[in-house]
Each structure stands twice: as C-alpha cells, then as structure tokens.
C-alpha cells in the first residue's frame, strides 16, 4: 500500500469474496487494507467452523463424538508445566513472551502439575532432581504428554557422560516429542508443540 492511499476504505466499498473462483483463497491485492484482511479472515473462519461442526454432528450420529471432541479440545489447549531446569528454560520463557507468543496455540503454562497435561523438560536433568521430576509427572492427570526440549533432555547433551546427569529424560518418563538443539530456538519449541498436536490427533479417538 502506498502512502497516498487511505488506510480505511470507504464504507460503501464492496467486500472481497471470502473464497475465490474454484474454491481458491483470494490473492490479496496490495491495496487491501488491514480492516479488509480482518474481515476476510472472519469470513474464512465461518466456513471452516461450519465444516468442523458438521463433522462433529456426523460423528455424533455415529456415536463417536465424545472422544474426538475431547481430543480436539485437548490438543488445542495444551497446558505445559511452568518450570525451568537449565538454559533451555530461557528459550521456553521467550516462547511465551510477546515475540513468539505461544498462547496463540492455546499453550498456557500452569504452575501446578495438577492442572497440566504436558511436561516440557527444558534443560539438563540431574540425578538429584530425577525423582522430583518423576513425582511431578505422576502428579499430572491423564492424558499427559512429555516433550524433551534440547539435547540435554534428549540424550544428556554435552554432559552425557557426566557423573551427575541423567543421559536422556526418557530413562525416567515416556517421551512423545524430541526437540534437537542446544538450545532449540522458540520457533523449534513451537514446532515441537505443533508436532505433538498432530501426534495427539493421530493417536486420538
């Protein structure tokens, strides 16, 4: 959009169609304003919601509604345990900050394991902390998942042969998704969460 054009279109201007010819999403021309983009988004949302709802209605008719519904709700509102074990916890914290904003995926860290269904092991696990980690995992209600974030949690990382470090958190609890990196960037952590959502959908129902 060039600076000469107005940012807000006149109210009389007709709205662009939500879905273009042939079911394709419309290619936004450069003069579409932000308000129009928001309107387009909500128009695209309505067909998607209708599709999802009709799938649910179909499943209800087949008697298979509740589990898919719980699966859908659960995988879109993963509550990870709010804790930090080592340097990876800094990236974990950054992922919930303004720049990466993990909450847009429904991921909200909770401080009590009783309210969590996801444990992100974000750092080096020492033998000293091992039984506390297992206790926290056991306090989480089912169904629950574990993400091993970073090389340390995956296999001990740079401290693999150290005398005090658990060589991989999968020695203690079952792990669903491993994220490589030392530390993984917040994008990688978000990618891991999205992979876990896929995994839950595949396993679910």
């Amino acid at each position, binding site marked *: 959009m060039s600076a000469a054009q107005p940012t807000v279109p006149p109210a009389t201007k007709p709205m662009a169609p939500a879905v273009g010819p042939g079911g394709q999403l419309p290619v936004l021309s450069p003069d579409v304003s932000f308000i129009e983009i928001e309107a387009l988004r909500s128009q695209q949302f309505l067909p998607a919601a209708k599709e999802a709802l009709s799938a649910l209605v179909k499943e209800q008719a087949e008697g298979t509604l509740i589990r898919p519904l719980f699966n859908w709700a659960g995988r879109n509102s993963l509550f990870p345990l709010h804790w930090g074990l080592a340097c990876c916890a800094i990236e974990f914290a950054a992922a919930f900050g303004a720049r990466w904003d993990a909450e847009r995926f429904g991921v909200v860290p909770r401080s009590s394991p009783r309210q969590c269904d996801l444990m992100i092991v974000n750092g080096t696990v020492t*033998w*000293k902390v*091992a*039984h506390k980690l297992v206790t926290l995992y056991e306090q989480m209600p089912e169904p629950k998942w574990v993400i091993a974030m970073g090389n340390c949690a995956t296999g001990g990382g740079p401290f*693999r042969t150290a*005398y*005090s470090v658990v*060589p991989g958190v999968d020695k*203690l609890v079952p792990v669903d998704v491993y994220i490589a990196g030392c530390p993984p960037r917040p994008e990688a952590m978000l990618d891991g969460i999205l992979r876990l959502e896929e995994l839950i959908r595949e396993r679910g129902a």
Partner: protein
Amino acid sequence: MDADEVRAKLTGAGAPGILSVDPFPGVAARVRFSPDSAAPLFPIVRDALGFPHLSTVGGIDWVERYEVFYLLWSDTAKTYLLLSADLDAKAPHIETASSTWPSANWHEREAWELVGIGFDHHPDLRHLLMPDGYDFHPLQRAFKLHEPEELEVKVRHV
C-alpha cells in the same frame, strides 16, 4: 599481614601441629598443619589470628595423598589465609571445622561427597549435590567417567 606475622602470631598463641608457614599468591600465608591437631588449632586461628569467616573448604586428590584446605577471610586485616593439611591416601579424614566456623558444614558435605574426605564429628554428613544412595566420589582420580548405561542410580520415588 604477611607470612612472618602469621608465624609470629601462631607461635605466640601456642598453636599446635604447625608444619610450615609460607608466602602464597593471593593470600597472607599458607599454613600447613598436621591433621591430628586440627581440633585445637581451628579456634586459635579464628580468635588469636582474627579470621572469623570461612570462605570455602576443598579437597584435592594428589593420588599418593589427599589434601584438604580451608580459605579464611579476616574483616580486620582485609586478607585471606590458607590452611592446608595432607591426609592419608587410604582413609582420608580430619576433624570437622564446623564447630568453629558453622559455614564449614555444607562445604565439608561437598568435599566429602565429591572427593571422599571424611570429616569426624560432623553434625550432618549427608549428600549435598548428589542423590541419596549415590555410591561414588566423582572427583577422585580413580573415578572413571562412565558410559551412561553403566551409571546406575536408583531413582527414589517419594
């Protein structure tokens, strides 16, 4: 405060078991003493020499012997003092300093669990950095780095 002054004060206070008092970089002096005389020596160092603060206790494995050292700080002289004692390689042990300097408690726990130096009459000689039931002293020279599969530590469920 220099090594001569430390030596003169120790002699004046009748400190037992002093083997040598030498200059040492970064501290007023390095005092080597016999481990048998640790119990009467520590209060003399604290009160007669004026070193009320114990910064750290450490142990070193020199293969043929162990060494335990104490780093002390004096608020009045604004200087450090190093005490050190050579210990037997087979069963290294020394009297605890925690009845003289309470801050020795955790430092001695750490020196015990990592280097394997025993501290007699310690009030609470438990593991500090390692889980209970950890059977190794990992900073001893004889300790081999383990392949992860070999290092079997039982996880205690609470």
